[in-house]
């Protein structure tokens, strides 16, 4: 098959849109921290993207998509983009590389939730490089690079496991290692810049269309199905989370946008496999589940500060399982539980569970290691003053 201009145009533009999700995460998170850490939060996303960009072309792509080694990791055959050329099937191989790059970038950005307002900037760079190499790259290989999960038949259309479970449970592990923010639970630490969060959320919703539809790698019916299920799930999640939180008080805009992200996360693994009507349920339930997870986390006094675990981790887990329930052969070629294929359901649970365990465990180890060697956390004085000044020497009025 030769190159196709429609497909190539599609994936180039999708790459751009997904790239925008990384600053989107920065803005989304930045609005939820105290103002003294607003720059820091956005800067973490930017630097995450920059270092992953370089790591990916030098090493990461090869680890994920190089020749399979024992189902666990890719070989070094594509190091420095060796053999990744401008031809390919439908789209150039190099474009596939670029599209995967922006996924790796945004995943590291999501992870910053767990260390918000207290991470040492230099340590984050080291930790980030280790994490993307030892957590993200293997997980990408397992699902998409020909690893064991792929062989097993596990379905992950656009990264429910690779992107969201990995970063969500990773953030949880980070939060446990780095510890709660100073005075967490004693003083309220409310979102101080909600407009910024809503803007970031809008950019995420926007980019997510490309994230999910682009994962078809071709401008075809599957991409369209992904587009439609994505939007439905996001909307359903926004509505259910908001409704649930309404019962407990007022319908906050943060609840609405968090629900939308929950819906987007949950549909990610299944968007090319399930029908639009299933997406209403997947997204709607995600809104409730992730809201519940958030409340649970708060009750446990655990400062996984911006809820990557509750939203991306739990939403991704639900999405992986939901794919096993709702997948329909008419849409993506594979049936799920409700169409009588219990097998797929168990495969999904297995795949997701291993990912949860690996992401959590490995992140925990890496965080402990970096903490030992160079210290993960800023000093108390630096935390009090805020990371904007203490890490970047900057401050901003908005």
């Amino acid at each position, binding site marked *: 098959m030769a190159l196709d201009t429609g497909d190539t145009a599609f994936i180039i533009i999708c790459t751009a849109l997904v790239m925008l999700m990384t600053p989107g995460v920065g803005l989304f998170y930045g609005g939820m921290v105290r103002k*003294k850490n607003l720059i820091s939060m956005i800067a973490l996303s930017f630097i995450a993207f920059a270092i992953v960009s370089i790591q990916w072309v030098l090493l990461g792509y090869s680890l994920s998509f190089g020749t399979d080694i024992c189902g666990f990791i890719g070989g070094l055959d594509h190091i420095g983009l060796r053999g990744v050329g401008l031809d390919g099937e439908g789209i150039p191989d190099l474009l596939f590389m670029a599209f995967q790059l922006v996924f790796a970038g945004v995943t590291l950005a999501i992870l910053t939730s767990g260390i918000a307002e207290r991470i040492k900037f230099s340590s984050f760079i080291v930790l980030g490089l280790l994490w993307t190499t030892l957590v993200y790259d293997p997980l990408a290989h397992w699902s998409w690079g020909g690893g064991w999960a792929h062989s097993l038949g596990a379905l992950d259309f656009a990264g429910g496991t690779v992107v969201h479970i990995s970063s969500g449970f990773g953030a949880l592990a980070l939060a446990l290692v780095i510890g709660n923010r100073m*005075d967490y639970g004693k*003083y*309220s630490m409310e979102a101080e810049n909600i407009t910024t969060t809503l803007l970031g959320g809008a950019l995420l919703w926007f980019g997510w269309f490309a994230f999910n539809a682009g994962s078809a790698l071709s401008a075809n019916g599957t991409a369209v199905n992904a587009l439609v299920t994505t939007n439905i799930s996001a909307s359903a999640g926004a509505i259910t989370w908001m409704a649930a939180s309404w019962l407990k008080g007022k319908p906050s805009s943060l609840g609405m946008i968090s629900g939308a992200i929950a819906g987007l996360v949950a549909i990610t693994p299944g968007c090319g496999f399930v029908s639009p009507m299933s997406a209403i349920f997947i997204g709607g339930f995600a809104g409730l589940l992730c809201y519940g997870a958030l409340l649970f986390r708060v009750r446990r006094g655990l400062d996984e500060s911006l809820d990557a675990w509750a939203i991306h981790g739990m939403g991704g887990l639900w999405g992986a399982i939901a794919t096993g329930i709702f997948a329909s052969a008419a849409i993506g070629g594979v049936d799920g539980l409700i169409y009588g294929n219990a097998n797929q359901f168990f495969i999904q649970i297995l795949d997701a569970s291993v990912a949860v365990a690996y992401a959590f465990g490995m992140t925990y180890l890496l965080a402990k290691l970096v903490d030992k060697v160079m210290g993960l956390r800023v*000093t108390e*004085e*630096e935390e*009090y*003053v805020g990371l904007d*000044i*203490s890490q970047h*020497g900057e401050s901003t009025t908005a």
Partner: protein
Amino acid sequence: MKRVVAIIRPEKLNDVKAALEEKGYFAMTVHEVKGRGAQRGICLQYRGKQIKVDMIPKVEIEMVIGDSDVHPVIDTIKQNARTGKFGDGKIFVSPVEIVVGIRTDDEIIS
């Protein structure tokens, strides 16, 4: 009447407000300010050299109260704003000669 001005840590505002409320002192005006105290701000060690961060965000509470309320109010604020670390803040009391309520048109002269 006296004007009590307390410059405290922003994160202590809710505690202080609640404590004052409990004692029956409700009315207040709050300013967002920045400040530095006698111990000269916070010093960050940075790659060998010291960086001094002065002008830390603070909250200034302004309350106009009767003369006999001054000490109860000072004590309440002190107890609830203290962390024991540098930067806890100061309270200043100064005289007020006239207090006018705009809505009620009452004028108290002291």
